[in-house]
């Protein structure tokens, strides 16, 4: 039946959009004189070709997933958090500080404390724009972006001054980085690769976020406020409080992502002056992963792996085919554009179907779970 087909089509749309983006990318590769099949083969090989490659993909996917989980919460509450980068940085800085200060404490305790501190740091950095929105009606999109800039400069300041690696402080070069965390504080490696326990934490948290959103009164209220603040207010829910909570939790997960990067991958913080120098853009790419996963925490897992694979595979493609690394960013961007616009298109189709079916008709075709964020500003 036509409606069932269109439901299936809706479900497959992100995949089709990704393929379309890769097709456009293929054209660009052709223009640059590179065989796209070879290039994509290299990409696949780089991302999934070996145990090591796949582990690397998962390492990249971990911060994406953590940020995406926060995004699932905030976008479901109809608050748009673009501050993942800054929240990651603040979380990482605070966690690193704990790790570098409490050197005499047992490893498990310091790791736990550090990750919690990262969580709280991100929560604070997300909560501030939340409060500003709830009580002063400040647009959270702008304020979270501005908070990113503040976080970057704070990091640059700390890593050049108070938190600088003592050994660097003595040298003339003065590389802006912290000291390295001691071995006991590193997150456990899972297999003999760079894959670390952070990936497991992220997956476990995905389940927890699912429970939070659909099995708790908090989640119920966050979703209610996101879907219809009027009815929520009429039902006695304190709308602004749950807006703050959504943004705060969203920041917390990004903060945790930052802490996990330090304790699981880099073991120190180092800055090249930009935010993405530390985050690798995960604060932004996590948003895309969440949207790709339909703002559903569980679906965000494969979505994050996909984007992790794109990042890792692109490196390999670059090495094998000599395409400039910028093309990788372009490919990434293409996927984002295609997926996001397919989502808008899908929603419009759905709305048309709804409009056509009208409130008077009994059942319009069953529609896939819908993220509802894009009504922002309407």
């Amino acid at each position, binding site marked *: *039946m036509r*409606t*069932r087909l269109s439901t299936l089509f809706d479900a497959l749309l992100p995949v089709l959009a990704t393929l379309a983006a890769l097709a456009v990318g293929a054209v660009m590769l052709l223009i640059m004189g590179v065989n796209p099949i070879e290039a994509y083969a290299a990409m696949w090989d780089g991302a999934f070709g070996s145990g090591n490659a796949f582990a690397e993909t998962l390492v990249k996917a971990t911060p994406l997933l953590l940020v995406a989980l926060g995004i699932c919460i905030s976008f479901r509450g109809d608050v748009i958090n673009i501050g993942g980068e800054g929240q990651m940085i603040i979380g990482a800085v605070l966690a690193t500080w704990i790790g570098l200060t409490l050197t005499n404490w047992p490893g498990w305790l310091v790791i736990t404390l550090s990750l919690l501190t990262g969580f709280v740091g991100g929560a604070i950095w997300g909560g501030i724009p939340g409060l500003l929105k709830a009580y002063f009606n400040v647009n959270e999109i702008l304020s979270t972006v501005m908070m990113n800039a503040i976080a970057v400069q704070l990091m640059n300041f700390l890593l050049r001054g108070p938190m600088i690696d003592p050994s660097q402080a003595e040298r003339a070069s003065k590389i802006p980085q912290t000291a390295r965390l001691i071995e006991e504080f590193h997150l456990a490696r899972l297999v003999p690769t760079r894959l670390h326990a952070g990936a497991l934490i992220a997956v476990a948290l995905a389940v927890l976020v699912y429970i939070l959103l*659909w*099995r*708790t*009164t*908090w989640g*119920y*209220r966050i*979703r*209610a406020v996101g*879907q*219809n603040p*009027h*009815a*929520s*207010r*009429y*039902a*006695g*829910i*304190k709308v602004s409080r749950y807006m703050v909570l959504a943004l705060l939790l969203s920041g917390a997960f990004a903060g945790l992502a930052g802490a996990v990067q330090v304790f699981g991958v880099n073991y120190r913080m180092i800055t090249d002056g930009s935010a993405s120098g530390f985050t690798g853009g995960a604060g932004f790419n996590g948003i895309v992963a969440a949207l790709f996963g339909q703002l559903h925490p569980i679906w965000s897992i494969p979505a994050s792996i996909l984007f992790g694979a794109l990042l890792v595979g692109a490196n390999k493609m670059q090495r094998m085919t000599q395409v400039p690394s910028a093309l990788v960013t372009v490919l990434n961007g293409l996927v984002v554009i295609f997926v996001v616009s397919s989502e808008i298109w899908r929603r419009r189709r759905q709305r048309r179907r*709804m*409009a*056509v*079916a*009208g*409130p*008077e*008709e*009994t*059942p*319009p*075709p*069953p529609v896939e779970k*819908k993220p*509802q964020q894009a009504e922002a500003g309407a």
Partner: protein
Amino acid sequence: MTEANTLPSGRTRLDRLEMRGITKRFPGVLASDHVDFDVQAGEVHALLGENGAGKSTLMKILYGLYHPDEGQILLNGQPVTIASPTDSIRLGIGMIHQHFMLVPTLTVAENVALGLPSSRGALTDLDRVSKRILELAEIYSLKIDPSAYVWQLSVGQQQRVEIIKALYRGAALLILDEPTAVLTPQEVDELFVIMRQMTRDGHGLVFISHKLHEVVEISNRITVLRDGRKIGTRPTSEITKQDLANWMVGREVSFAPDRGDVKCAEARLQLENVACGSDRGTPGLRGVSLELCSGEILGIAGVSGNGQRELAEAITGLRKVTSGKVLLEGRDITGLTPAEITDRMLSYIPEERMRDGMIKDFSVAENMILREHTKMPYSRSGLLNLREISRHADELIAQFHVKTPSHDTLAKNLSGGNIQKVVLAREIFRTPRVIIAAQPTRGLDIGATEYVREQLLEQRRKGVAVMLISEDLDEILALSDRIAVLYEGQVMDIVPREDATPERLGLLMAGVHPEESAPVVK
């Protein structure tokens, strides 16, 4: 009817439009089952039926929003295909939607020109559009100023803009989807004048309405639909209201609900000189004092915008009370939060149920616990008990006869009447002491309206204090024990049911105190 084959707007007449054997299936539902329908130039053909009976489906097929699975459409005897609204507009079919499709911040002329190519290419031709609007307004006696901004217009005037828009696009046949639902009685009269003029001029009109007396008043023929099937078509002169009502719901409908005696045992809700602002910053309520007793229905009558919304919101804590006091069962609740007030067993059925009463992207079950989700047994220490929530929803669905495929169905997929049943079920099931019901039957069909009213009376019998805020005077008169009339944020008078007549209330609603005038018995 005019002799010529052209309409006053200059367009060719559509003598006869016929729909034959129209069938439309939705998953699990036969929305339209071999329905025949036709409309001729110079007549008003009313389409009646409960929500979900298939009226909208049929008209949306005619307007090109849907494609029929079977059947055909004939225009003056010639089969036509209507693939989209563009086609239907080209063929001369216009539709006035229940919810206006106007941009409030644009002028009338800009709204009419919206979406049409300009005769000057890239430049606007609003002067020409305005001129044409004035011509049409002249021909059809539709008073409208093309340069007025839509937000400045009353609902009735906005509807006229919609009609002009359709005529401007060359509509010979107009579908009016519940055009009277949003109008005041005076505006309805004006609309009917326009409709009569249009039929005299040779337009064909399809009129969809729930209000029987209007249908009887304006239509030439009536077609009744039920469950997607046509029950019959008959000239209006041959049928009575009661016939129609029975036809529509397929059972006897009582128009005069049964009521017991009033017994005012205790004052449940007291308002002492309550004042508050409105959304526009003007005074909303200006010193309202009321007393609501257990076991009574206090009707609040008034022309829309005279403080009804503010009254409900001031009581429920949604609007700040600037002076005066609200007492619930003797305790001062002024300034408490909405949650604190509803926790004292005050229930509220909000006026705009789609916006304020429910969350359309939540399931029926989730909507059922909107107020009580933090309470046992629906949740325990923050964790929702999904099994209990589903069980609760199923119980309410059965008890309140909500028509829904399941409790997991999203609320937006229910019909208006069933959405109101969900709200009603949620608000009544918690055994409130006071119910504030604002426009509880607005836009509902006869069956649902009767059901809602019966439930309110049932609550009254149980001793609940019910405040019924309604702009439907018939409803107020049928249900209330006492009637308070609001005028410009003040109570004009409180009239006992026995002394209330439409004339007396009408005068009060207009702000006129009928001094010592003996109640006219009708």
